[in-house]
């Protein structure tokens, strides 16, 4: 079963680039796929540019409206995602618990719709 793991964190909560903590965190991200072999399979995953780069769009009565910024104004921003294949929720949660963002933000685990 596929699960989408979305990572949320406040920008000031995570280690800043250039610090040893940041390098250690990135090391953890890069090693995650390998570390979680046997628990869940990594299918895809990306980190996102900061929320200041986001554009939100909607179309109403044929007209496109664009807005500078994210869809929801929250303190914790969507910062990245994983798509994994796991046997059940317990395995997906075990994967989620190893994502560094779980320590300074939150990870939402959602099953992917099956058609």
């Amino acid at each position, binding site marked *: *079963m596929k699960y989408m793991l979305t990572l949320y964190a406040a920008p000031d909560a995570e280690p800043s680039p250039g610090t040893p903590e940041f390098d250690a965190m990135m090391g953890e991200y890069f090693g995650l796929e390998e570390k979680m072999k046997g628990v869940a399979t990594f299918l895809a995953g990306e980190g996102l540019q900061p929320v200041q780069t986001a554009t939100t769009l909607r179309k109403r009565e044929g007209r496109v409206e664009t807005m500078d910024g994210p869809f929801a104004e929250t303190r914790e921003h969507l910062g990245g995602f994983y798509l994994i294949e796991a*046997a*059940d*929720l*317990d395995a997906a949660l*075990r994967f989620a618990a190893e994502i560094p963002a779980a320590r300074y933000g939150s990870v939402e685990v*959602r*099953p992917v719709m099956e058609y």
Partner: protein
Amino acid sequence: MIEATLGRVMQDDRGRLLAALIARTGDFQRAEDALQEAAASALVHWGRAGVPASPTGWLLRAALRKAIDGYRRDTTLSRHRDAIAVLAEEEAADPDPQTIPDDRLRLIFTCCHPALEEKSRIALTLRSLCGLTTAQVAAVFLDAEPTMGQRLSRAKAKIAAARIPFTVPGAEDLPDRLNSVLTVVYLIYTAGYAQGPQIGIDLCTEAIFLARLLLQLAPDQPEVEAALALLLLTQARAAARIGPDGQSLPPIRQDRSLWNRAALDEGLALLDRAISRRAPGPFQLKAAIAALHSADGPPDWPQIAALYARLHDYEPTPVIALNHAVALAESGQLAQALAQVQALGAQLDGYQPFHAARADFLARIGDSASARPEYLRAIALAGSEADRSFLQARLSALK
């Protein structure tokens, strides 16, 4: 007569039947629907042909057939070929519920999964393992029956959609998951303790039933032994907790001839057994505290304070910090107790025991002027007449 027999079988064996059906269908809702349909046809068949020799066996077989029918009715039939084959084989083998493996441990771990909301865990456990009807579960929470029905449906839908597994967790996850199960059992108990028996349901009895069931299904687990010990030690004092004048009484002031000696002894023996396994946990600490409150003579407050301090490492909640402060005060460490309770004000402002404790500490250091408004606040927040009456007496005793 038939209805009464069926009702009894469904109440006693619902958990076992449901667990067996979920194990075979892998689907909580299908299993429940199949069991419901089997019960409905039991009413008709038993009425005609008499109650079968093994009513539970009859129900299991009928429910397996209903589950197969359910799959056949499903428009995505092709997906379910394997499931149908397994069920048909089981049904043909004329399963005897007494000899098939008891899957209730898996069921309770599923019902108490931390991915479900706490209230839903309690509701699902009462419905699935204690055999309460949806109406009874609703009554426990003072909810309308349709509201509770929706809550139960949402929980089952999440179990299916997010694939919450029907399994006993592995060694790595077991301590946390077992704690989640035992917490549900304990919450059921405390709800019953606060409400007393209602509409024919005694939640204290249901909680003790669940704890005994867990002990039977997962023997050698010190936290399970300790959880049952905690319930028994508390239950042993239940008849004495309200004095003749309607006031709540702390254990030290209770009439000990009203204590249930058998429950007390069983609780203490279970706790000893748990501690001898040398794998400490929060329920062992809670049961040890309850045991110290039941000891002959005045309680060993310094020891109770030490146990609360350790419990706070497991569960750093303001309520445990408050209990720790009370134990410190009783041990004579009033200054430390007051300082600790002061720091909890922001989190516990709406919690009656916080104001009662603070009032008591202030009264002890002779600050009646500050104690008085705290007692008044506690009285305003008191949930029962017994507590109110106790606090009123303390307030009147202020100089």
